């Protein structure tokens, strides 16, 4: 057998000391997350691989199923209910990619720690990585869908609002952190209250219908609130500004002529670019704080996982 050389027997005097103790500071939690990014990547790829393992169409499903949802909503709202919004597919698509990313991540992350109890009880790694890997997988689907959207826009010859495009990364980052925060906290709460999983399905459905995805912002209760000076109430739902930003970027028009009645339709709030920018930056700041709070909450809840799993 190959005997080790003297050089192989490295001295550990210089190695950094890792500390295991009851409570890790937020800084340690963050640096642990960064240190284990390889694990995050392999969990994301294995998640995606397993999801489409053995299916003939594979990753193509991540485009096909949103496309079918899109077609359904289009049929119902544009063809049957005749909402009169021109290019309604683009409007729907812009909102749905945001919603899909949020919904798939949160609903898959909610049960992830319970489902992978065997791993949690036997292997040491920052547990929030499990929830974050589900968020990561939905980021991949998000990217695929946004590429499809871009191709679709090119084919129909509809240009996005180029001047607003720089808001996309800010808005996306806010979406990512928001999704990650909720995913991380929900994954921990489900360990203690298994019902949360089923509750979350209902909550997500409700959440979808209060977000302006299939109907326009101006057709919601928002104008009524605005008259009473309560517009802020509508923005308690942090998904709203993100969805509006995406719609503003890809659908572009705030006011269009109805295809059924020929009258002007107000679709998106007629905000200036500065307003959109302020809203997005404020939301990003909020999402960063929320993410840190989520990590702290997770750290508190994680201590008792072993007696609940």
């Amino acid at each position: 057998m190959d005997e080790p050389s003297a050089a192989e027997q490295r001295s550990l005097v210089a190695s950094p000391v890792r500390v295991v103790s009851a409570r890790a500071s937020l800084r340690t939690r963050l640096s642990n997350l960064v240190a284990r990014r390889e694990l995050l990547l392999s969990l994301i790829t294995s998640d995606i691989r397993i999801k489409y393992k053995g299916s003939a169409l594979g990753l193509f499903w991540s485009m096909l199923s949103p496309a079918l949802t899109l077609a359904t909503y289009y049929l119902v709202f544009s063809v049957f209910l005749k909402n009169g919004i021109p290019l309604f597919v683009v409007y729907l698509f812009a909102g749905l990619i945001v919603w899909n990313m949020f919904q798939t991540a949160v609903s898959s992350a909610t049960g992830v720690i319970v489902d992978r109890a065997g791993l949690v009880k036997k292997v040491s790694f920052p547990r929030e990585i499990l929830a974050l890997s589900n968020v990561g997988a939905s980021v991949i689907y998000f990217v695929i869908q946004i590429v499809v959207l871009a191709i679709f826009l090119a084919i129909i010859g509809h240009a996005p609002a180029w001047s607003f495009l720089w808001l996309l990364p800010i808005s996306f980052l806010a979406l990512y952190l928001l999704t990650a925060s909720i995913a991380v906290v929900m994954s921990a709460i489900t360990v203690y209250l298994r019902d949360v999983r089923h509750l979350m399905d209902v909550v997500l459905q409700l959440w979808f219908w209060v977000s302006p995805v299939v109907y326009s912002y101006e057709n919601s209760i928002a104008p009524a609130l605005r008259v009473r000076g309560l517009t802020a109430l509508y923005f308690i739902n942090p998904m709203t500004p993100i969805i509006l930003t995406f719609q503003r970027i890809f659908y572009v028009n705030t006011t269009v002529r109805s295809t059924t009645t020929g009258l002007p339709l107000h679709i998106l709030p007629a905000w200036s670019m500065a307003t959109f920018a302020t809203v997005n930056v404020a939301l990003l700041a909020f999402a960063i704080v929320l993410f840190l709070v989520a990590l702290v909450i997770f750290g508190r809840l994680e201590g008792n996982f072993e007696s609940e799993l």
Partner: protein
Amino acid sequence: MTTVIEVQDISKRFTIHHERNQTLKERILHPRSGSSEIFDALNDINFSVAQGETLGIVGHNGSGKSTLLKCICGVLKPTTGQIRLRGNLAALLELGAGFQHELSGRDNVYLYGSMLGFTRKMVDAIFDDVVAFSELEHFIDTPVKFYSSGMYVRLAFAVAVNVNPDILVVDEVLAVGDERFQAKCIDRIRRFQREGRTILLVTHQADTVRAICDRAIVLDHGNMVADGPVTDALRIFRERLLGDMIDHRPGGSGVVSIDGLSAPSGSFEVRHGSNLRFDATLSCDHAVSGNLVIEVFTRTGLLVSRNDAEAAPVTLRPGVNKVGVELANVPLLDGVYDINVGLVEPQGATMLAWREKAASLQVLYDGRSSGVVGIESSVTQW
């Protein structure tokens, strides 16, 4: 030597729910009805391990040894205290815990490697060694759900030992695979020792500790009761185990004790190949029957022989009893050996009494063979 593991005042407290209020409805309707109990799995454990040491952690079931190991690996967070670690650590708490059944062996090697904290590049470098060690060349691209349990475990073990961790933590997993694979695992652990890596081994098999470890700590109901050389630690472990069994015996008023061994000739000296007679003195306060266990160990802690206790039944009267023992044709070679004597229940083999190192046996041998036992050998030239 550098200290690589420092366990400082570690305590771990579990809350055990007797009635689990898992659903929201139950929690709201009966917020405090489920009774729960506090269980201290570890109390103020302190020890440190130097680089290159092989430390055995022994204790009976429920002594907290696995909890301690999980705290060291970071799977559990201690309630109080802290553990300081230097260097990377690979833990074999349950082989293949991180495997994804749908993925191929190849994908799982990478996934498991990243769970142990190694980068893709590091796994790339050792991938061929892992496959060779696991002997799964033909199945590496097969999903692991089609693996037999032996193949599964071999792959996991192969990853953990080939990533060359600075600290290897092993929890009762050496009993896997066939005998040849076990020998290979032990061989790899010995190589780790030569390479100056640190090993933590949890087991309740005294023989494994004796064979591999330099030092052992003994846990008993969450307390550390011994920390020292293997033979001393194992003696304390046995005594504790025994004390425990006597405590838990139904109607445990009767205590059997082994008072000592005495040889009629006055000394435990025997010539190679001849017989040794001695008496064991046992006292008890009520009539009891059991089987006598006699173990012979080398001074280095190797078990040479344990008799067939079934064939050595004894019936004790209240008071002091003498039992005659004869070891026939002692095949041992020159040296000093330790004799342990115990009494076990006829059924279930519960230990009634145990005496570690009840006597030292001196064996005289004139021949020139060396080793522990003399095997008569002759060579014929055809």
